[in-house]
């Protein structure tokens, strides 16, 4: 939040932006704000504020401006060039279109804040958050009591605000600071507001209170159970997909060599052939270097209840087993709220890791604390990851642990490992967006995020890595199959 900007806009735009709130026209759907327009928006009401059920215009205006500047700041951090004057223009535009109609607000902001077609993506990803914060904040200003949102985060911060205002004397309110709607401050950085839409499932955010059973299962400390499945027999296509994925990830040089302009070995045959052209004198010495063909990896598999419900457990184990067998050196770790090193079980299991896991009394199906799992890995198995290791995380990113722990864990992994690849069972939907708390925290540090539900997903991941390399533009968002589905299945 840039408070310098804040002040500037308030000064430069004092009179106009109050229109931003009162300028709502007669479009239906305005909820409580609508009522506020019927009462005259004269200055005198400011001092009574929320006391008599008359909305706090000053607070609403301030909230709108804060949210607008916040949106501009978020867009700037996403790389959109927005001069300060555009924020002013946006505030004026809002005063014309009002705050009732979502599409009109969106169009107005689009016209004033954007100037490149390429910026539209950033805008589209930020706008829902802006809209939600704006509306819920205004609702909180307009009503004294509870907000209609059943979103636990906004409930906490926003119902608290008006009650603070109530505690003050009416006379004091005139000069009192408007309630702070900037959201919970610990959530600085990428905004994390859950938007109660039907896209919740697609974005990977599950409602946390959809029933007693789910609450138990997906809570941070949910009960876990013994491993009690058999390992599925993989089809030939699945084995091929896993092997191809392993090959694509390879970072360690094997025995094969390939012609290269700067290699460490002279290619004798090629040099001899080239010397024929110069009468037998070897002028140029072609060299070769080894082809990376072996994989050293560290497989971190999320076995929390949410993942086990999404993925077939036996296939998950078979996948880990095949990865372990196919790579030259693969450490395998299962984690829910705790992290267990099961490399030995996979080694000993010889095609039946489930039995070995049962014997070792390994439990799974608890809650998810990804950050704590990474911290445990760092503390207890620091040598499992080195600079040649590719870390493969299989998790849906539905984290209920501490964000900071997760952030520090994943940065440690990213620093230390050759690459971090995240396989998310939810990332196969075309409407998937990595907005769940855990996924959003981890995403900036990952080399790639791929979907993970069928062999074709691994094939696609392998194809992208082969073509563009681990450092290239790879990930679920570049999955060509999604576009086919999106354009082919679209009826309009």
């Amino acid at each position, binding site marked *: 939040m840039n408070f310098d900007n804040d002040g500037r806009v308030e000064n430069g735009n004092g009179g106009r932006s109050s229109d931003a709130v009162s300028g709502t*026209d007669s479009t239906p759907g305005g909820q409580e704000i609508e009522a506020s327009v019927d009462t005259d928006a004269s200055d005198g009401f400011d001092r009574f504020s929320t006391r008599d059920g008359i909305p706090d215009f000053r607070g609403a205006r301030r909230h709108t401006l804060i949210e607008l500047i916040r949106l501009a700041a978020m867009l700037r951090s996403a790389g959109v*060039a927005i*001069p300060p*004057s*555009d924020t002013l*223009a946006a505030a*004026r*535009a809002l005063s*014309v*279109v009002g705050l009732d109609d979502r*599409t*009109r607000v969106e*169009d*107005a902001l*689009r*016209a*004033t804040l*954007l*100037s490149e*077609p390429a910026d*539209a993506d950033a805008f589209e990803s930020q706008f829902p958050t802006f809209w939600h914060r704006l509306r819920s904040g205004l609702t909180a200003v307009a009503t004294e009591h509870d907000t209609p949102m059943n979103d636990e985060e906004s409930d906490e911060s926003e119902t608290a605000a008006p009650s603070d205002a109530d505690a003050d004397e009416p006379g004091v309110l005139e000069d009192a600071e408007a309630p702070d709607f900037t959201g919970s401050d610990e959530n600085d950085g990428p905004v994390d507001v859950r938007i109660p839409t039907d896209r919740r499932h697609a974005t990977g955010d599950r409602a946390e209170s959809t029933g007693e059973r789910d609450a138990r299962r997906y809570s941070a400390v949910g009960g876990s159970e013994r491993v009690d499945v058999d390992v599925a027999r993989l089809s030939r296509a699945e084995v091929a997909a896993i092997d191809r994925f392993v090959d694509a990830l390879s970072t360690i040089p094997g025995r094969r060599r390939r012609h290269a302009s700067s290699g460490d070995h002279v290619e004798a045959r090629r040099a001899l052939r080239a010397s024929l052209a110069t009468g037998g004198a070897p002028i140029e010495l072609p060299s070769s270097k080894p082809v990376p063909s072996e994989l050293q990896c560290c497989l971190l598999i999320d076995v929390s209840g949410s993942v086990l419900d999404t993925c077939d457990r036996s296939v998950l184990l078979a996948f880990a087993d095949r990865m372990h067998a196919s790579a030259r050196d693969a450490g395998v770790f299962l984690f829910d709220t705790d992290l267990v090193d099961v490399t030995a079980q996979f080694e000993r299991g010889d095609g039946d890791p489930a039995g070995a896991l049962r014997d070792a009394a390994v439990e799974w199906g608890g809650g998810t604390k990804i950050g704590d799992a990474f911290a445990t890995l760092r503390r207890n198995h620091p040598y499992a990851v080195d600079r040649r290791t590719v870390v493969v995380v299989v998790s849906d990113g539905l984290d209920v642990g501490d964000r900071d722990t997760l952030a520090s864990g994943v940065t440690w992994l990213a620093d230390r490992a050759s690459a971090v690849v995240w396989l998310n069972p939810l990332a196969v939907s075309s409407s998937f967006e990595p907005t769940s708390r855990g996924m959003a925290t981890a995403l900036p540090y990952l080399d790639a995020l791929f979907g993970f539900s069928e062999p074709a997903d691994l094939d696609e991941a392998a194809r992208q890595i082969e073509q563009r390399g681990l450092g290239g533009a790879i990930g679920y968002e570049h999955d060509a199959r999604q576009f086919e589905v999106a*354009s082919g299945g679209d*009826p*309009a």
Partner: protein
Amino acid sequence: MTRNAFASLSPSDLEARFDAESYVADDRTVTTVHLALTLGRPLLVEGPPGSGKTELGKVLAKGFDTELIRLQCYEGLTAENALYEWNYTKQLLAVQADEGTVAGAADPDKPERERSVFDEEYLLERPLLRALTAGGDVPPVLLVDEIDRADEEFEAFLLELLSDFQVSIPEYGTVKADQPPIVILTSNRTRGLSDALKRRCLYLHVEPPSFEDEYEIVRRKVPELDAAVAAEVCAIVARLREEAFLKQPGVAETLDWARAVAQLRHDDAEEPLSAAEIERTLGCLLKEAEDFARVDTELLEQLRDAAAAADSRIEA
């Protein structure tokens, strides 16, 4: 601040005017144009050729029954061509006839023979200046077409005009508009525009219309074409846009093609389009040899399928 003739304009009013001129605009266009009018800011419209950018300016002028002042930009366009020029011949004659002097500023109080020849009388108004000085209840529409074709220097020259709606003429003084004209700038994105220009404008990116919108456009602009055939035309164009052509067909091409189809078939008006018919008239839609080479039997077949599905889309 100068007065604004559009302060009380409502979006639905604007939509009605668009409607009266048979201009099919989506909500985003209506909101953005409405904002440009009420806020009195220039509107920068970008989009592929043939998407109705220039048409927007024309429709606004017609819809508000006002003058359309059009400035077509090209490389080498200078301030003399765009803004104003002194009428040298008249000035020279005036000085020789001892009716004016080259010294001093214009001052109407002075006797005629001491008056400067740098006066309004000797000024030739070019489009930009005319847009500022035009009177009337409703301000004129200034359409600066294809601004990306003009030199960057010219773009810089527009800045004063766009932000303050005034121009400074060194010998004469500053000319300020009584009421700001409606300024529409269009660009095909052949080069990037400067940030200074962009930040003075509202921005609208025109995209190819949806199937329904395009159908509506064809129905209005080419009423002689049978409704079912019009739906097929739109469905085929929509299908063609999915191909990676060098030059995607725009709305203008769709209309051209619709007119061509209407022209060719007068007696068998209700017959669906045949593959041969599509192939023969495809020159209206595709304007590159490479694009033509891409059209094979398979694609034609797919176009036929798209056309066959069009009727149900219209009904749904």
